């Protein structure tokens, strides 16, 4: 008569326990890794709206010319020792408050087009966002 699984001799039980333990560890490891994976990898398909970042440094916008899909939120961060004001050439569109060092400002571009902007207090600083 075949021995019942749960009534096998001790040695067999030890082997099975070891194998089960190993499988459990592997499964845990895979689960944990799977949990981390989306954070490390860029997966635009999953996210509803991706973001673009522009750094303000040395009295200039970097990058000064970006192309993004409609619906993207652009975030500017000021790395300079002086404040800057991010303002669209079109007065109706967007204008940040005065951004001190490390402050940010975000704007979501919904319509395709080319949008020129500048720093409202240092107007020689100009750049643009192209929305497709």
């Amino acid at each position: 008569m075949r021995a019942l699984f749960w009534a096998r001799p001790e040695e067999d039980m030890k082997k099975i326990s070891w194998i089960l333990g190993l499988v459990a560890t592997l499964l845990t490891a895979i689960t944990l890794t799977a949990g981390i994976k989306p954070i490390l990898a860029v997966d635009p398909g999953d996210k509803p709206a991706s973001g673009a970042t522009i750094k303000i440094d040395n009295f200039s916008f970097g990058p000064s010319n970006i192309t993004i899909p409609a619906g993207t939120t652009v975030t500017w961060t000021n790395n300079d020792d002086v404040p800057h004001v991010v303002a669209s050439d079109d007065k109706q569109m967007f204008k940040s408050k005065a951004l001190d060092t490390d402050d940010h400002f975000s704007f979501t571009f919904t319509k395709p087009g080319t949008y020129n902007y500048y720093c409202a207090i240092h107007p020689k600083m100009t750049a643009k966002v192209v929305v497709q």
Partner: protein
Amino acid sequence: MADFIKDNINKDGIDRRGFLQCMAWAGTGVLYTLHGGILKSMPLMQGAMGGNDMAKMKGADFSFIQISDSHIGFNKEANPDVTATLQVAVDRINSAAAQPDFLLHTGDISQLSKPSEFDTAEQVLKGVKAGNIFYVPGEHDVLTDDGQQYLDRFGRGTKGKGWYSFDHKGAHFIGLVNVLDLKAGGLGSLGSSQLEWLSADVKQLKSSTPIVVFAHIPLWTVYPEWGWGTDDSEQALGYLKRFGSVSVLNGHIHQIMQKVEGNITFHTALSTAFPQPAPGTASSPGPMKVPADQLRNVLGISHVNFVRGNHSLAIVDSPLARP
């Protein structure tokens, strides 16, 4: 000195160009400071001047002080305590031999247009022994509400967005605002309403009236790449060309620069907060760091002496550092 005289306008053996060239020999003043943003430690300007110049100063009908760019609220490496250096400027003004008739502040009083910053600036300046204080805004003073807060505090009696004029002992002083409605890619801007007002303001004045204009951003093109200039200043200066003596006092660039164009003398003042690099010597016009023990050599105030009948003002720039 005789070799340098070209136009003996005041018939005193000195002309402005000759004066400036002599100052270069003395190792003081304008030509020296034009080379680079850092001034070497040097004695107080007045002490270094020759006897002839001191005599000119003593004959002044009145004097006033120009300070600029106090940037109260700034706290980065270039100067972690701008309130302290503004206080030093006040102490220097108060320790001068003669009390000035008034103070001109050519803007960037605050760093971020915050009420607390304006409060602190006014508090420190309350201690100055100098009669009235006249202000014009810098771009840092009009960051919120299109400058409404600046107007509420300092705009009493001004026109439009804060421009005005007043007379003092026969000279006509004009405060202009060139930091609002700045256009993308542009420089400073006066705007048509202000230009119209200016034209009407000086129309009835005799050409012999000495004119002193003060505004934040330079009214001549110092360095357009860094925004150091005013797009429509030519028109403003056009209204003033007929006058025998016009002085334009500006700030914004945090270093001393002078230029003479016919009857118009332009002068920019040091900041009381932090220096900025000389045009083209750095990648941007941001605050320039200097060793802490040299900071007060590159900050300063300007004593301006007005002598009736003289072609131009006598401007003496003094660093905050004691000799």
